[in-house]
């Protein structure tokens, strides 16, 4: 029989109330937000019923437009309309120009990082991404009558390095979203299909989107999704299939030179024709322009013939990825299809033939990543206390330090399960050397120039000693999101110097604060209100988490300790109601944090002991 719960005054009456958590697929072409409701994951739509938000941001002098409307403005206002900014995250101008050639943007530097000049000023890829995230956050809040979002799982490509992951997280922070976890896109897709609790083995995730193609080979072993290999083509997607049909239309109508508006018409018709061909064997396309009227018949057979070379191109990437993973095609247990372009029958049949396996297609390929992220968000926010889902990720690329001669010394090799902390000792090179500069790199190659530079910093104040006498301990820490922090310390003389760095591409906390301020300069009151709101949500989170812990583990504290902690919690609850500034709440949260530190440590120890209870040494 269920017992009624009676809460103490000032305490939350329903600690197990359903919390709103979302999964966000921040895509190159389109972005989506999803959540779990009544045990089922579903994507959230805008007022017009669209789930997909085009990842386009248009900056105007006094306003910002995101989504469909911005995408429509792209041709008229290319310089101020930022498309596919995901490709720019964590990159330098040189890298972008190298990969994408001529772009309609004017790049500049802002606060030491890359930005694009617009009529609204210098906009960084992080800021533009945060606008997309804000729009999705708003959509989620509107869908649930203004209920606050307690956290989000945001997906990133498996090959994203530290700088790109850090930028994604910064964008979320800027949008006022608490990131529960950054999750690899292919892992999210596998989770949506429930593969995390099924058989163990190799999973291939084939992701053909609007403008990019990714293939990931994962190994699922004891709940750990290990990324064995990734590959693909950053400029191959559904758009390329459309232009094949545009060329076909031109040939059939005998029109070779198209004006911009007729070209747009052809592209739209091509897209519609391609989509219809996924259902029908024959599609009749009417093309009316410049007083002319044409009818073109396209059969699926014709389209398949046109498309085959592009599909074969993706299969070449698959072959390479399979080889890189060190496996054989037959070892692949499941193939997961992601991205709208995988609806094309020719893609499905070719992929099935290549892996000799029917691919998984039952979940909408446009939504599968967001749905998987929502499932994990639901677990992480605490809505499913009994779930034993555990997604362990590995470091996608090795981390290391520059040593003599421009070589890289690897500190943490790729595919190490994260979180992880590793330390390595270095020594001084010259007599009396008092400083040492450290260069943090990520990548698999031996030479510094071939790896990505993440950060440079120097450790000063080393006591003067003979060469080789100092012991400098450099510690790399990678958290569960794959984000790195590095510290260095001289320890031989007991004189300790320590420095913390953030990757140079990521934003410092000050920078994030500044950007927040900048975006709010016109509305100081707004910002104060928003920060107050955020602290209120944070306070609620802290109180609920602690109450849940106390409900199960209060026995770990004696009466006096319990009383003291409860008093601090009660204070925080009161301050949360009465506070008019965010600082008041922040101070009260810190007080609770301090009062609960011993409790937290005891609980962690207890849970470690409990995890292996009944499996003591004698039993083994």
């Amino acid at each position, binding site marked *: 029989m269920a017992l009624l719960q009676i809460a103490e005054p000032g305490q939350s009456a329903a600690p197990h109330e359903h919390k709103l958590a979302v999964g966000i697929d921040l895509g190159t072409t389109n972005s989506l937000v999803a959540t779990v409701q009544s045990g089922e994951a579903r994507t959230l739509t805008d007022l017009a019923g669209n789930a997909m938000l085009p990842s386009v941001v248009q900056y105007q002098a006094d306003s910002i437009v995101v989504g469909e409307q911005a995408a429509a403005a792209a041709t008229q206002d290319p310089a101020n309309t930022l498309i596919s900014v995901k490709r720019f995250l964590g990159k330098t101008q040189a890298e972008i120009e190298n990969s994408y050639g001529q772009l309609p943007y004017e790049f500049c530097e802002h606060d030491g990082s890359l930005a694009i000049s617009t009529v609204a000023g210098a906009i960084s890829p992080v800021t533009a991404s945060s606008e997309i995230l804000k729009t999705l956050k708003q959509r989620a809040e509107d869908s649930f009558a203004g209920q606050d979002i307690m956290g989000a799982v945001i997906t990133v490509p498996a090959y994203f390095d530290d700088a790109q992951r850090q930028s994604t997280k910064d964008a979320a922070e800027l949008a006022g979203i608490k990131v*529960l976890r950054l999750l690899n896109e292919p892992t999210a897709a596998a989770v949506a299909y429930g593969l995390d609790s099924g058989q163990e083995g190799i999973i291939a995730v084939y992701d053909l989107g609007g403008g990019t193609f990714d293939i990931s080979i994962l190994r699922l072993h004891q709940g750990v999704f290990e990324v064995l290999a990734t590959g693909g083509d950053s400029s191959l997607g559904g758009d390329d299939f459309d232009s094949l049909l545009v060329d076909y239309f031109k040939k059939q109508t005998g029109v070779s030179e198209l004006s911009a508006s007729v070209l747009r018409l052809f592209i739209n018709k091509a897209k519609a024709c391609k989509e219809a061909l996924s259902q029908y064997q024959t599609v009749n396309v009417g093309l009316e322009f410049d007083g002319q009227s044409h009818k073109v018949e396209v059969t699926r057979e014709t389209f398949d013939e046109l498309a085959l070379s592009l599909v074969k191109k993706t299969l070449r990437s698959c072959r390479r990825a399979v080889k890189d993973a060190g496996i054989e095609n037959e070892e692949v247990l499941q193939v997961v299809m992601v991205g709208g372009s995988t609806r094309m029958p020719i893609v499905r049949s070719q992929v099935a033939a290549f892996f000799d396996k029917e691919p998984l297609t039952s979940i909408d390929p446009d939504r599968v990543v967001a749905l998987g992220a929502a499932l994990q968000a639901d677990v992480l926010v605490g809505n499913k206390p009994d779930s034993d889902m555990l997604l*362990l990720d590995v470091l996608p690329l090795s981390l290391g330090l520059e040593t003599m001669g421009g070589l890289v010394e690897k500190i943490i090799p790729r595919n190490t399960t994260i979180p992880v*902390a590793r330390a390595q000792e270095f020594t001084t090179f010259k007599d009396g050397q008092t400083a040492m500069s450290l260069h943090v790199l990520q990548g698999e190659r031996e030479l510094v120039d071939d790896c990505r530079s993440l950060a440079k910093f120097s450790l000063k104040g080393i006591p003067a000693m003979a060469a080789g006498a100092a012991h400098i301990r450099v510690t790399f820490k990678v958290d569960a999101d794959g984000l790195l922090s590095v510290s260095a310390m001289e320890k031989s003389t007991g004189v300790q110097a320590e420095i913390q760095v953030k990757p140079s591409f990521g934003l410092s906390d000050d920078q994030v604060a500044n950007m927040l301020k900048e975006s709010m300069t016109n509305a100081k009151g707004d910002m104060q209100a928003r920060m107050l709101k955020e602290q209120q949500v944070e306070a609620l989170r802290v109180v609920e988490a602690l109450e849940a812990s106390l409900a199960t583990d209060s026995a770990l504290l004696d009466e006096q300790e319990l009383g003291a902690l409860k008093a601090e919690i009660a204070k925080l609850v009161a301050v949360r109601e009465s506070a008019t500034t965010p600082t008041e709440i922040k101070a009260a949260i810190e007080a609770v944090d301090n009062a609960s530190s011993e409790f937290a440590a005891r609980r962690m120890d207890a849970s470690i002991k409990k*995890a292996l209870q009944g499996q003591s040494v004698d039993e083994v």
Partner: protein
Amino acid sequence: MRYFELFAIPVDYNIDLATINKHYLELQRAVHPDRHASSSSRDKLLAVQSAAEINDALQTLKHPVKRAEYMLSELGVDIRAEQQTLQDPLFLMQQMELREELEELENAADPDAAIAQFEAQIKQLDKQYSSELAAQLASSDEQQWQAAADNIRKLKFVYKLREELERIEDSLFDD
């Protein structure tokens, strides 16, 4: 020995990998930061630290050389950062011969058979040093520990040979 206690397994150089893997997952289920995603920042920090330590413990326990070095360091003999080289002319001579043999593998009349035969030799050495290690590390005699240190140094040579062999196998297989 903290890592052994953490994984609730007996302190013994011979380990049961299946048990370790099973206990690893149960430990991560208890401490992983994802389990504390909505907790306070202090709880999360603790979780990251604990999860990192468990990951480190797993890497150490799983790898035969790392496991032996760890056990030895817990006994007070830390050879993990040493620059010292092995003083055993007989062993070094044998290693040189093995290296020469390894380099000839690619030119062997039947590379597959030659590789298999070489692999068997390495396995034999691995087995010999490992079984000696188990007894030495279980002993309470300090002299045995020094002998264990030498055995670990030898095992490192053996593992290097094995890596080289894998590399050669890969390059033969690629063509």
